[in-house]
């Protein structure tokens, strides 16, 4: 008994010492660090691979360059050299990409793979916790079914990374998560190492319809705005309570530890800049209102999603450094999606804002290159001079930036993760197919080798006990 008591006293002391020492560090540390521990850490480890070089390719770097007859050299899962005429030792494995095109692995900033999995049945509707208009406490990753057969299909479309978001039924729908498109038995095994979480927010028709029907707030757009602001006001108080608690540690008037609140943990991490806001929002007016709310409470919107009217406010998006993640051409399914123009992404890009083509669809994610081809061609038909080297950024480096992983992937540059696609044609041709897809330097999909085409648990033996689904 005594021994235990002593031990626990020692432990307490130790905790206090650690607490004090961390408190005595610069104030910045405390503000930047999350107030709470980070559970569910990534357990993803790249598959070890030998060095290789892709040669004689037309390379779109994702940084605005197109290189002819170029090579990409990969070592220990990282891109080491991209360019023409460099020496690679003869024992290094070579992929001849003569006549083929090479791009960074594609990134979808808006996916529901795993949370609205295929087959779509009653039990796979896991993306919207529509029991409260603010559910910042839910995390999309806890809904992810890692065996969604849509994931290997997206890989065959060249997608190496995707952000899984909660749906748009709520004002604040919860945390999104960024995944590597790899086989794993846990979602942690897919989590992109070091990627920040996102917070899904939604404007407009969806939340007001969902809750209006339940005869509760919000039932109008003004109700939506009151709902966001009320949530941020609560978050501000919670942040202040924790800040005051930390400041009091070690002082004479030590405060009681505030009671943890999962919902507010997430919102405070947004205010502290650790979680990026991804905001479903169609209309020009609503986007500008959301920007004002972000300024009111001091958080940053990384991207407006769907943003059918982004072209009306492209200059503001450029100034505010907010991406517009749009479809090439979806429209008309709702009133707020009525003012569609085919040139939306191109007009955003032309205003020097960050344009992204997203899918929001388990089919669209397989054809991000085709969707981008349409969006690029629409701009060019109206006089712009967009080239593949420009438009590829809409599905590589720009989504990487919006997700907050641009230091790690999204371009073919030295020391980036070797997330690479070899395409049979110009990726914006209808005939283009991803032939080989590498993730962190490991060959994860090979169109020419059925042994290198991943099969989900679901696919196994479901149509033929001795075979796979495809």
């Amino acid at each position, binding site marked *: 008994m005594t021994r235990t008591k002593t031990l626990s006293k020692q432990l307490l002391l130790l905790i206090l010492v650690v607490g004090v020492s961390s408190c005595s560090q610069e104030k910045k540390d405390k503000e930047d660090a999350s107030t709470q521990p980070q559970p569910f850490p990534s357990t993803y480890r790249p598959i070890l691979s030998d060095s290789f070089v892709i040669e004689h390719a037309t390379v779109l770097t994702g940084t605005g360059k197109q290189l002819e007859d170029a090579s990409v050299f990969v070592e220990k899962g990282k891109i080491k050299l991209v360019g023409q005429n460099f020496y690679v030792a003869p024992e290094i494995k070579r992929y001849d990409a003569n006549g083929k095109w090479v791009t960074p692995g594609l990134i979808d900033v808006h996916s529901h793979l795993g949370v609205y999995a295929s087959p779509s*049945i009653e039990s796979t509707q896991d993306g919207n916790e529509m029991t409260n208009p603010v559910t910042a406490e839910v995390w999309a990753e806890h809904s992810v079914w890692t065996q969604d057969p849509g994931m290997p299909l997206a890989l065959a479309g060249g997608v190496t990374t995707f952000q899984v978001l909660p749906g748009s039924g709520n004002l604040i729908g919860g945390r999104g998560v960024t995944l590597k498109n790899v086989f794993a038995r846990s979602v942690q095994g897919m989590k992109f190492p070091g990627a920040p979480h996102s917070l899904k927010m939604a404007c407009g028709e969806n939340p007001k319809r969902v809750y209006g029907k339940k005869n509760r707030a919000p039932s109008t757009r003004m109700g939506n705005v009151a709902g966001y602001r009320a949530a941020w006001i609560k978050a501000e108080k919670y942040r202040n309570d924790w800040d005051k608690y930390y400041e009091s540690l070690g002082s004479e008037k030590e405060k009681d530890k505030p009671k943890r609140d999962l919902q507010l943990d997430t919102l405070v991490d947004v205010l502290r800049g650790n979680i990026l806001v991804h905001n479903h929002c169609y209309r020009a007016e609503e986007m500008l209102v959301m920007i004002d709310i972000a300024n009111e409470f001091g958080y940053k919107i990384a991207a407006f999603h769907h943003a059918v009217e982004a072209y009306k406010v492209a200059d503001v998006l450029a100034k505010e450094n907010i991406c517009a993640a749009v479809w090439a051409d*979806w429209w008309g399914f709702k009133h707020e999606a009525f003012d*569609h*123009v*085919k040139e939306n992404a191109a007009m955003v890009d032309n205003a020097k804002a960050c344009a992204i083509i997203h899918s929001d669809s388990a089919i669209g994610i397989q054809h991000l290159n085709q969707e981008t081809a349409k969006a690029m*061609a629409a701009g060019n038909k109206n006089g712009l001079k967009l080239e593949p080297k420009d438009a590829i950024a809409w599905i590589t480096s720009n989504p990487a930036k919006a997700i907050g992983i641009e230091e790690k992937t999204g371009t073919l540059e030295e020391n980036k993760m070797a997330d690479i696609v070899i395409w049979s044609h110009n990726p914006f041709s209808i005939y283009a197919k991803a032939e080989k897809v590498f993730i962190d330097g490991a060959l994860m999909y090979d169109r020419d080798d059925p042994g290198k085409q991943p099969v989900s648990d679901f696919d196994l033996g479901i149509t033929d006990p001795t075979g796979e689904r495809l």
Partner: protein
Amino acid sequence: MKKIFSYCCRSCAKMLILTVGLLHSLISNAEDFLIKNAIVHTATKQGVLNETDIYVSDGFIMQVGKNIQLDGKHTLIDAKGKHVTPGLINASTQLGLVEIGAALSTVDHSTKNTMQGASFSVASAINFRSTLIPQNRINGLTRAIVRPSGGTSIFQGQGSVIALLSDQQGLISEHSAQYANYGIAGANISGGSRASAYLVLDKALDEANYLRHNRSEYKIGYDWKFSQSVQDLDALKGVLEKKVPLVISVHRSNDILQMIKLAKKHSVRLILAGASEAWMVADEIAREKIPVIMDPILNLPSFESLSIRLDAAAILNEAGVKLVFTGIDWQSTHNGYLVRQSAGNAAAYGMPAEDALKAMTINTAEVFGIKNYGQIAVGMEADIVVWDGDPLELTSNADVVLIKGINQAMVSRATRLRDRYWDLDNIQMKAFTR
């Protein structure tokens, strides 16, 4: 033969003009066109013709060939390096029946009226002033099959054929097909099992046949004892007389075989729609000469389409099945023109490109009985699209769209919005930008 026929048509048209007295309005629209030096995708056995001219007069294609010389007044369309196809058809849309999906006051494609299943006919509801029609038209879609959806009966009702014109002249054929559901959608409406759905369909066709032969016995005021309303059974008459095809949405390969069996029993012209697993029974479908409506880009499994795959169109085509395309699935109405993307994916996954083109032109015209349509050939109606590149490439766009020989303005509500916001200076003055 075709040439003679076309001239006949031309004179018929002229007689009609004189008789009806619309001389002024029609002549002012229907110019003569000479399209020069195009790469012509004919959708005929001739395939692709290079450096070819097309002469259009009175709404019909009068000549196709090299170096056509004309004396009379005509508009020249220089198509050097450009591609020409017949105007595209989407085989499954709700054009004119919906403006905004979630705004129910703009939606007419289904009914909750339990008396109206097979008798529900969409033609009277089609809004030719819909903004969807110009948006699709300027992107190369010139005809569409407009079909009902949903409802409370296993029969969804009757669909129409339209030309993408913004007035009533767009109605080409009022009753072009009858629609029904099988598989899980049919089961859900029939009590919860495919077995129930089969019985409902079988019984309805039996009863319709009985009523057809004993119609005079049944008068208003009788106590009808049928499984469907009498107007619904009456509406199946055309199906039983093989005047109208029966389009059944069905996916699982076993379900497809059941529907083939049902169609044979009742001797109806079956068209399979959706048909995700049709490729697994391609030979049976080809043998029975049953057309298949599909969207080749779809490849997500459901529990009734576990074997859905991107090369299904190529497999069916190879087996000799007549394919007609729709797409893109969730936007096949607002963006019905994206049938071109779906067809392009069929081509990317092994279907010959010219066959993919046929599946959105001549095949569709034949399957739905659209006369003189769907090929660049003498005697065909002049629904023609000039593309600035390969028509299956998504980087290509339409430059010129002719419908019935009339040059369409390349303007839609979307292009108006684009032009208004193309530059963002002087926003307040946009109020006066028309």
